[in-house]
């Protein structure tokens, strides 16, 4: 992989990790469409991905630094006391509840699923599926809005009728956490399924995004940290990869800020339509071998 390619992949990973459009799908499809020759089986590719993920996790930690301090403090207080009394304590336990199923499924199944489906055709197909999933989540949300007779209100008022992340049930947190396993399929977005799950559980769009980003942080961070020893293997161009990781972190930070602002009144539909179009065009280009 050349240095410009590494920088491009860093930018792509950072920008698409938090948007509900599947970073894995894009990182499988786009290099193939560009006829890039680097192999994902190359021994230096895993360290590269590790650094990109650490860049993304770092960006999320910076974005939510104050909340993470409260969450960590709340976690220890609630764990020792055996009782939840504050919102940060509840959020900490919700995140633990959501992270456990994702961790179990990730450790036991991630590598097998990824290796089974690591083809640009499959990724393009799942990207289309991801688009329909996002549109489906919004369809369910619109029904909930109609049931609550919110049709005549402005979008901002509609959003305020739904809950904050701390109000979600523990069962819903576990289900949303388990849904992250769907993102092992290239083309299915982790943030897409978790934001969608949050919407179905009755959260506001912005709160569903916040819960999704908070839930993603320990998973991405842990997945990166366990692979850190591979960074020091011989032949890894660490300087170039660190530059790509920094770019990935900056892109992730910017995309998270954009999404949180967008979801004050925005919906998932544009991303759903994008995924359907991008998946269909990619399938066409791959079939025509352009």
């Amino acid at each position, binding site marked *: 992989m050349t240095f410009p390619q590494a920088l491009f992949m860093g930018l792509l990973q950072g920008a698409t990790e938090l948007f509900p459009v599947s970073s894995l799908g894009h990182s499988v499809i786009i290099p193939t469409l560009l006829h890039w020759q680097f192999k994902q089986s190359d021994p230096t590719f895993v360290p590269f991905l590790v650094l990109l993920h650490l860049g993304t996790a770092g960006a999320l930690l910076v974005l939510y630094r104050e909340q993470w301090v409260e969450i960590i403090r709340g976690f220890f207080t609630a*764990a*020792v006391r*055996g*009782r939840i009394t504050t919102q940060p304590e509840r959020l900490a336990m919700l995140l*633990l509840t959501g992270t*456990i199923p994702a*961790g*179990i499924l990730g*450790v*036991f199944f991630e*590598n*097998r699923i990824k290796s089974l489906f690591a083809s640009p055709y499959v990724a393009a197909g799942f990207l289309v599926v991801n688009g329909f999933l996002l549109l489906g989540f919004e369809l369910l949300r619109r029904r909930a809005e109609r049931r609550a007779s919110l049709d005549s209100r402005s979008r901002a008022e509609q959003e305020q009728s739904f809950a904050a992340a701390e109000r979600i049930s523990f069962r819903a947190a576990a289900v949303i956490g388990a849904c992250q396993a769907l993102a092992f399929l290239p083309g299915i977005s982790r943030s897409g399924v978790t934001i969608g799950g949050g919407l179905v559980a009755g959260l506001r769009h912005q709160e569903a995004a916040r819960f999704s980003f908070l839930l993603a942080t320990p998973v991405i961070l*842990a997945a990166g940290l*366990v692979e850190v020893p591979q960074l020091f293997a011989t032949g890894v161009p660490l300087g170039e990869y660190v530059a790509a990781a920094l770019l990935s972190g900056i892109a992730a930070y910017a995309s998270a800020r954009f999404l949180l602002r967008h979801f004050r009144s925005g919906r998932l539909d544009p991303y759903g339509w994008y995924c359907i179009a991008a998946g269909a065009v990619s399938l066409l280009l791959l079939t025509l071998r352009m």
Partner: protein
Amino acid sequence: MRDRLAVVLVILAVAFVVIAGLYYEGVLQIAVSDPHAAHHTTHAILFAVLAVASLIAANFAREKTV
């Protein structure tokens, strides 16, 4: 009833610690990507986390005096 659940969760935590140790030592080879690896650190970390989570759940489940 709640105390009984707490005891069950503590026993579960101990079982998770044992499984974590067995994975780390490479004795347990269930659902691992490389059966020849000396240590299965990721699996060990997962079960250690599950043990901690079980202990927290046990603390939540036990009868509170105050």
